[in-house]
């Protein structure tokens, strides 16, 4: 930008030299105007507000060209960073004067106190740069570890912790596939119920997914298994799978609990399929999500 400015001002400068004879006073006047114009514009370019050097991500300013707003941003930055501003107060006087003049220029005659504020802000900003630099490298290191850790996570590990379970569930809500997880929770709750109340009727509890115990260990009425379902209802419930249908009919005709073991086997196949589906599709996307990385950072 500075170079372009110099080139632009050189043209009238040279034109004046060639066109206006030496004896005219206007020649000096033109030359002086060119030089002062060149330096003024250069100064404005160099001392342009900070927000015009790079785009501000979380800018307080509504309009990035509004120079008056820069002060507000500086002040808010200053307030948030005042605690960190102890270090490196004596260094870089250049930066201070620059900031002062830039602010003075942009504010168009702000009073001394405010200028002092801006100055302090500048110090804190400078010190923060070094602070940020070291903390930034620390952060990236922690982040990298978290990313690696997120990759090592397994579905079982996530589900067995309350936080992880909730986070994964909210991820599934976003992806509209929460029903998979709900099925697993309900099925595990039922298995828990069976182990408490109907243990004698079941020899093998089958496949179990480690889900956070507070979610599974719910109180369920011990009469749950004795619920009277008509055959047609049980047919409607059982999805039309032959084996399940047969077991459900048996459940109606015979005693409730005799049909439990075969039912467990049948639903275990479904549960395994759902777990595989979650692992292969939703959980893989969850591992890549920023929420999961943040969760891992918290774990670290």
């Amino acid at each position: 930008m500075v170079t372009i400015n110099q080139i632009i001002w050189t043209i009238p400068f040279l034109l004046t030299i060639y066109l206006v004879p030496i004896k005219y006073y206007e020649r000096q006047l033109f030359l002086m105007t060119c030089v002062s114009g060149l330096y003024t514009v250069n100064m404005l370019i160099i001392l342009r507000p900070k927000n015009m050097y790079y785009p501000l991500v979380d800018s307080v300013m509504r309009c990035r060209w509004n120079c008056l707003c820069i002060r507000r941003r500086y002040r808010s930055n200053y307030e948030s960073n005042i605690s960190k501003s102890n270090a490196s107060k004596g260094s870089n006087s250049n930066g201070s004067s620059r900031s002062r003049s830039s602010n003075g220029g942009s504010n168009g005659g702000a009073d001394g106190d405010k200028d002092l504020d801006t100055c302090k802000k500048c110090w804190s900003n400078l010190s923060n740069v070094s602070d940020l630099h070291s903390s930034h490298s620390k952060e990236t290191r922690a982040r990298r570890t978290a990313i690696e850790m997120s990759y090592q996570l397994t579905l079982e590990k996530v589900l067995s912790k309350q936080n992880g379970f909730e986070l994964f569930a909210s991820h599934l809500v976003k992806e509209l596939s929460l029903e998979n997880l709900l099925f697993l929770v309900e099925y595990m709750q039922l298995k828990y119920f069976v182990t408490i109340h109907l243990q004698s009727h079941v020899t093998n509890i089958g496949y179990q997914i480690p889900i956070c115990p507070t979610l599974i260990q719910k109180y369920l009425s011990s009469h749950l298994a004795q619920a009277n379902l008509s055959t047609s209802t049980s047919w409607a419930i059982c999805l039309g799978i032959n084996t399940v249908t047969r077991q459900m009919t048996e459940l109606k005709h015979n005693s409730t609990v005799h049909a439990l073991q075969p039912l467990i086997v049948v639903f275990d196949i479904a549960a395994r399929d759902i777990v595989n589906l979650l692992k292969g599709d939703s959980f893989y996307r969850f591992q890549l999500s920023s929420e999961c990385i943040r969760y891992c950072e918290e774990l670290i």
Partner: protein
Amino acid sequence: MGGCMSDSQDTTDRNVEREIEKDKKQDTRAHKLLLLGAGGSGKSTFFKQLKAIHGEGHNDREKEGFKRQIHGQVVESIQLLIRQCKTVTKDPLPGIKDEDDEPFGNDDLDDARLSNSLKVEMTETEIAQFKIAKEFDQSCQYLLEIHGSRSALTEQLVTHVKSLWNECPAIQAMFEHRNKIGIPDSSAFFFNDIERIGRSDYTPDHKDIVLARYRTTGMTEKEFHIKDAVFKVLDVGGQRNERKKWIHFFDGVTAVLFVVSLTCYDEVPFEDVTDLAADVTLMNSMLESIKVFEDTLDFECFQKTGFILFFNKADLMQEKIKRVPITNAFPNYKGPQEFKPSVDYISKYFLSLNRVPEREMLLRFFFEYVLFVNYW
């Protein structure tokens, strides 16, 4: 103090509001494209291709995910092949015999139904070709006992899969019937390359990633910036239960990308897979695709939305048409059993389903994952 807090709260409020406004602006700027289609038609494959070409590609972590999907596909496919072989030949399932004895082994009703249907469909000699020889018993047992199908391929697993795939004619014979038992075509590619895939330092290349088949559940969205335009593409699951969720994304759709697999006219839909006795003329994925397409066209909110029909797997169709005619799904088709007239018929059939003449309908074809405006 209080003033300070309210000040910072105000700032946060303003920031949040601004972010929402920004998102809204971006949303209105983006063209929302919906990828729809029946299960297994190739929506996610299309999505992966888009990401590879117009997105930032697949990074190492994503590749690791695909690697696991590929491993899962290999294990699941081989397990399914073994199970189906055992079911057809009424061999007891070695791996899950103990726990599954009740529902499968002693299931008189199922057995009767199965054997009845098999008697109609197959002779003794036909059944005999699916008999897995005794020497493979150990491999079968080992493979059937694997439950966490997402686990990495071990050396032992690779050896078992390799021996079964290369040396066991029953598995190969069963694979020929993959259309009835829901095994993806690409599994053969992975079985043939099992040694490369099983290596510990294996990273899937572009072809592997595109060929990997995994069921999608729920919805994924991704933004693509192509030149100055922003496209927001939504990928969804295509199975019957997943289709109920589609209605949630129908708001403000610029165009529907409807994907149809050209080879699915003899494939049994995922939900109807039972055994080899399945009748593909009664229910196949093409009929399902047609039904889904009709239903989608009928939605009130799509009356003015443009549709782009993607006919996928055209290269596989070129091979399949030599063996199987499309009359499975289109009984009225009287043309020759050749690729061009068949595809012509299918595309015209799909276009004829549109009853709103002013709706824009486009046709596109995929050959080996490369998009063509026309197939000749």
